[in-house]
């Protein structure tokens, strides 16, 4: 069964450093998402990406965040200058065209900012 692959599984970074979280969505999927889950809290939507541009973003997704699909297979989330409160599990997801078809989440990247 096709999977959404996220790397690394765990990243530790110092406050103020830039991090890039990587995702390889399922190959025939057209919509891509990033979500965040702070420890012990619910999963929150960050951003959606379609047709090589951001299609929707939440208020969490401020100027510190950016997304990119640099080569047609990878989908990245960059945090420019990490803060302690960015520590969370970050999930990538992708889906096919149509009403929420094939919505698949990756296994997540646990980001720890120290």
């Amino acid at each position: 069964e096709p999977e959404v692959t996220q790397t690394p599984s765990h990243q530790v970074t110092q406050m103020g450093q830039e991090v890039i979280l990587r995702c390889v969505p399922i190959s025939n999927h057209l919509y891509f998402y990033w979500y965040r889950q702070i420890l012990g809290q619910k999963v929150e939507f960050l951003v959606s990406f379609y047709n090589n541009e951001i299609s929707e973003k939440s208020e969490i997704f401020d100027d510190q965040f950016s997304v990119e699909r640099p080569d047609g297979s990878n989908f990245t989330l960059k945090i420019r200058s990490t803060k302690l409160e960015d520590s969370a599990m970050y999930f990538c997801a992708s889906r096919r065209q149509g009403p929420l078809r094939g919505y698949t989440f990756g296994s997540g990247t646990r980001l720890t900012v120290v």
Partner: protein
Amino acid sequence: AQSVTQLDSHVSVSEGTPVLLRCNYSSSYSPSLFWYVQHPNKGLQLLLKYTSAATLVKGINGFEAEFKKSETSFHLTKPSAHMSDAAEYFCAGNGGSQGNLIFGKGTKLSVKP
């Protein structure tokens, strides 16, 4: 769905007894609703989804959920709990035109021997 509410933060059952995890939603349109399971330090695994077809949805591992529009509910059930069912369960609904999902706060299911 504009909002998704999971009514119980923690549910504890004995092995072999039924499981009921409650989820209510609010939506001004016909919602799509999902149940995901998350085992410790793992990702989100889809259990089942409702997308305006049959109101009783069967999922993996013996779970099922019933969409009840009159009650704005999508409760998750399983006839007989197994120890391996112990995990966090999230209800989610479609939150916007681009397919972003809105999640409930989660219900932690404990299964006692």
